[in-house]
């Protein structure tokens, strides 16, 4: 009956007595549960967690389907009851930090509160049970909702039209650049290059490559901004477009945007706006008014649809007049009081076509429209204002302790570095991990790439001053601890169910799925 881990209870008692420090964000330790993989629970017997009508056994698949295509039960699948499945995911969930658990200032990701009412709305049977190919007469509610959302997003971004269909920000980028390409092709030459500042998110260059464009990276200036002369120097008639994130990933407004756009337009190029940071501008300024020709939204950022552990997102794309003919399909149109989807190329001969099956992530449309309707004009503007206020407050309260690589004004997020900690040997990664012990999700780290050791903090407007104050305390305590006890910081995290994980090993010997008998130790 000895414990196989070699651990002794008396050690545990002693240890427990000593480990109830409470982090700035409230973190302490409590019970968590180790949980095997579903597949490690065995698949004995015919246990199942579902309740289905019993198959009659009358129609025999062997009569119709070729024997070589028929499979027996899949032996490795689990055999669990509903309670076991409930416990499994309940326990797993406790290993996660979500917005609902605590502060989640993951820069560039706009981790704002996900309204629970939106979840209820997206699950209304009329929405949840609607087949995407329902005859339009049976889907007028969905269509009207899409129409309303399209109108609202166009107004919010300052463009005349928007496609809702892309499945995430990056697919929105892809769609946008496809339209740019189609635009140039229509003018006889797709062109070759896209200009992208060095602060850009990785999806921007990756998107261009997918479209067959060569990426020309532009250096941003010492103030963290892209300068018109830089663009002018790179701009020629081979350049299809420039992709600009505004505010950029440093949280800095590209204040030369109008001039840059003019430079690009003058040579026949188009200006793509990565709208991932739109939260900063909501109700305050509109990309469509700044010279952009096209931009994507990230509804899962700006419009609070849940991030879901990695997705799904939704990446509508707004365009200026000149790109409207190239919008992908489908498009919702209103004819009298009736709504209808335009799905066929023959109605939109210049359309780039379809980028996603059916119409897009409709479930996210419901949530985004719900938020827009709940906020109204004043609420949307307050969203932008308070998002920026929160970031600036954190910036002001931390800049004496953490290095601020750019003195330029911040909008919705602020980027610090680990430079001031250099003498202690504590790095950005260490700070991030130590914040976990305080009860915070770490900021985005080592991005944007132009900043060495970046710590990118985006609080969003849904956080209280109280939470920000606690986070500031935590950040300051970590900086302090870096001086007095750097090893303590480097040992972090200590409270989570797992200590730092060996990422090198994971990549060197990739184990990407369970197999019978799998051992990872």
């Amino acid at each position, binding site marked *: 009956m000895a414990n196989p881990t070699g651990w002794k209870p008396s050690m545990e008692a002693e240890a427990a007595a000593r480990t109830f420090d409470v982090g700035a964000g409230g973190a302490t330790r409590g019970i968590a549960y180790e949980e095997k993989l579903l597949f490690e629970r065995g698949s004995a017997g015919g246990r199942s967690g*579902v309740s289905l009508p019993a198959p009659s056994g009358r129609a025999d698949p062997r009569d119709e389907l070729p024997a070589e295509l028929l499979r027996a039960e899949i032996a490795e699948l689990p055999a669990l009851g509903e309670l076991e499945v409930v416990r499994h995911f309940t326990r797993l969930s406790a290993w996660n930090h979500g917005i609902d658990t605590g502060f989640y200032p993951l820069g560039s990701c706009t981790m704002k509160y996900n309204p629970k009412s939106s979840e209820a709305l997206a699950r209304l049977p009329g929405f949840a049970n609607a087949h995407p190919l329902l005859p339009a007469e049976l889907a007028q509610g969905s269509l009207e909702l899409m129409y309303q959302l399209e109108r609202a997003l166009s107004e919010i971004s300052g463009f005349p039209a928007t496609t809702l269909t892309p499945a995430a920000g990056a697919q929105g980028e892809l769609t946008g650049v496809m339209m740019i390409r189609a635009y140039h092709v229509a003018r006889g030459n797709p062109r070759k290059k896209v200009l992208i500042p060095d602060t850009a998110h990785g999806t921007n260059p990756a998107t261009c490559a997918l479209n067959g464009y060569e990426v020309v990276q532009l250096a941003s200036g010492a103030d963290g901004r892209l300068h018109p002369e830089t663009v002018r120097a790179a701009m020629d008639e081979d350049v299809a477009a420039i992709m600009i994130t505004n505010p950029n990933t440093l949280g800095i407004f590209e204040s030369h945007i109008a001039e840059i756009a003019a430079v690009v337009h003058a040579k026949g190029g188009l200006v793509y706006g990565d709208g991932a940071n739109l939260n900063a501008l909501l109700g305050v300024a509109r990309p469509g008014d700044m010279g952009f020709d096209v931009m994507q939204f990230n509804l899962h950022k700006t419009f609070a649809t849940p991030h879901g552990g990695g997705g799904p997102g939704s990446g509508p794309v707004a365009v200026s007049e000149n790109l409207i003919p190239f919008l992908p399909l489908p498009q919702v149109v209103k004819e009298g009081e009736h709504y209808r989807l335009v799905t066929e190329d023959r109605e939109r001969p210049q359309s780039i076509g379809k980028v996603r099956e059916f119409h897009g992530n409709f479930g996210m449309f419901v949530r985004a429209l719900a938020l827009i309707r709940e906020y109204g004009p004043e609420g949307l503007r307050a969203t932008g204002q308070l998002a920026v206020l929160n970031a600036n407050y954190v910036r002001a309260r931390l800049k004496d302790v953490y290095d601020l690589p750019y003195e330029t004004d911040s909008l919705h997020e602020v980027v610090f570095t680990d430079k001031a900690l250099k003498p202690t040997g504590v790095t950005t990664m260490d700070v991030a991990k130590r914040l976990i012990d305080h009860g915070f999700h770490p900021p985005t780290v080592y991005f944007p790439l132009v900043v060495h050791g970046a710590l990118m903090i985006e609080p969003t407007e849904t956080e209280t001053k109280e939470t920000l104050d606690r986070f500031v305390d935590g950040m300051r305590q970590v900086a302090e601890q870096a001086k007095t006890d750097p090893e303590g910081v480097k040992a972090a995290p200590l409270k989570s169910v797992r200590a730092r994980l060996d990422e090198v090993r994971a990549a060197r010997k990739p184990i990407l799925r369970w197999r019978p008998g799998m051992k990872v130790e």
Partner: protein
Amino acid sequence: MRYHPHTEDEIHEMLQVAGARSLDDLFRSIPEPLRLKRLLQVPPALDEIALFAEMRRLAGKNQTEHPPFIGAGAYPHHVPPVVDQLLLRGELFTAYTPYQPEVSQGTLQALFEWQTFVCLLTGMEVANASMYDGASATAEAALMAARLTGRKKLVVSAAVHPEYRRVLATYLASTGDEVVTVPFGADGRTDLGALARVVDGDTAAVVMGYPNFLGVVEPLGEAAALARKAGALSIAVTAEAVAFGMLKGPGELGVDVAVGTFQSFGNSLGYGGPAPGFFATSQQNIRQMPGRLCGATVDKQGRRGFVLTLSTREQHIRREKATSNICTNAGLAALASTIHLALLGRRGLADLARLNYERARLLRDAMKRAGFGLAFSGPTFNEMAFEVGDAEAVVARLARKGVAAGVPLGRFFPGEPRLRGALLCVATELHTPELIELFARDVRN
């Protein structure tokens, strides 16, 4: 204001700390002319009660009382309510991509389980952490095949979902890759002879539906062998993954890449999305795969844990050299599938597949009694096309009764008059024998 927790006093105090005179002053870095001088012209704010009333009005305008007889890429299935209750646990649904594995083991282990489920069902060796949808997964598979083979010709069966083919075409428009379409025969199966004629040394991949868009089960092994012989990859596309409870996984049939959607597991129809695309292939291709990958490793104390791995393929590291531009994927939808598959388990999946198969036979028999034969003679799973005369007219007539009758194939194959009468219908565990009987009668009159 809803969801804005700031009090006036706090705003004041914070502005002071931030060194700004007003909220407007925070935006001084935005040149005056670029600022919006008016309020946005969106409808006025609604309180929660009014919001619910308005959204209920919209949802109520959809007519969804009965399960639709439409499949065609999105399948009506029963999602056990427990799925949703677990999915709505805030720790899961309000987290994001697990960049910090120590506080994301819940998401990560679930992803590892998802990847394993995809492998087990498809019979492939490895799978990624999800794709946007089946269509873009298909396009990404084609792109991967082109990268792996260095070839530029994609041979696609005409019986692959037409929307997937359209998305593929859009994705390939700028790459210079060429798409060659191979027709299907009267049995609804891809014409293997025609396939053999076009697959050659320039072919990057052969793309087949499984079951295909017509509901017909393709001779996948033969197509895969054909591709292999030419040094091309084979790609199987599955939109109705419940079929994997009865049909061998593409991997068992020699296929190189299996893609599609697991919408049928745990995800409601939701007017078409979100639903989790899947992408599975063989071990040797992992460094060319698109999307996120979750892998097992150990922590500092030797305990097993999970991380996102092989990120040197990805946009945030490799930028323009990345294997794809995917960042946000379909995590939560994949989790829904994972939970549903965990519930189904070995026997449940087999039973569900069998039940779908049986219900489709009931539909076939009921339609036959009502005078409608099958449009194709090939073997099917839970979906099949019927000859109903004027399919568009039938759909329009049943829509007036609030019944979603299926999709007229003619819509997707306008060039093929022989398909004018073909109505593609599905039957699943949601379609009770009584409902099926009623439906067949409705189609007749």
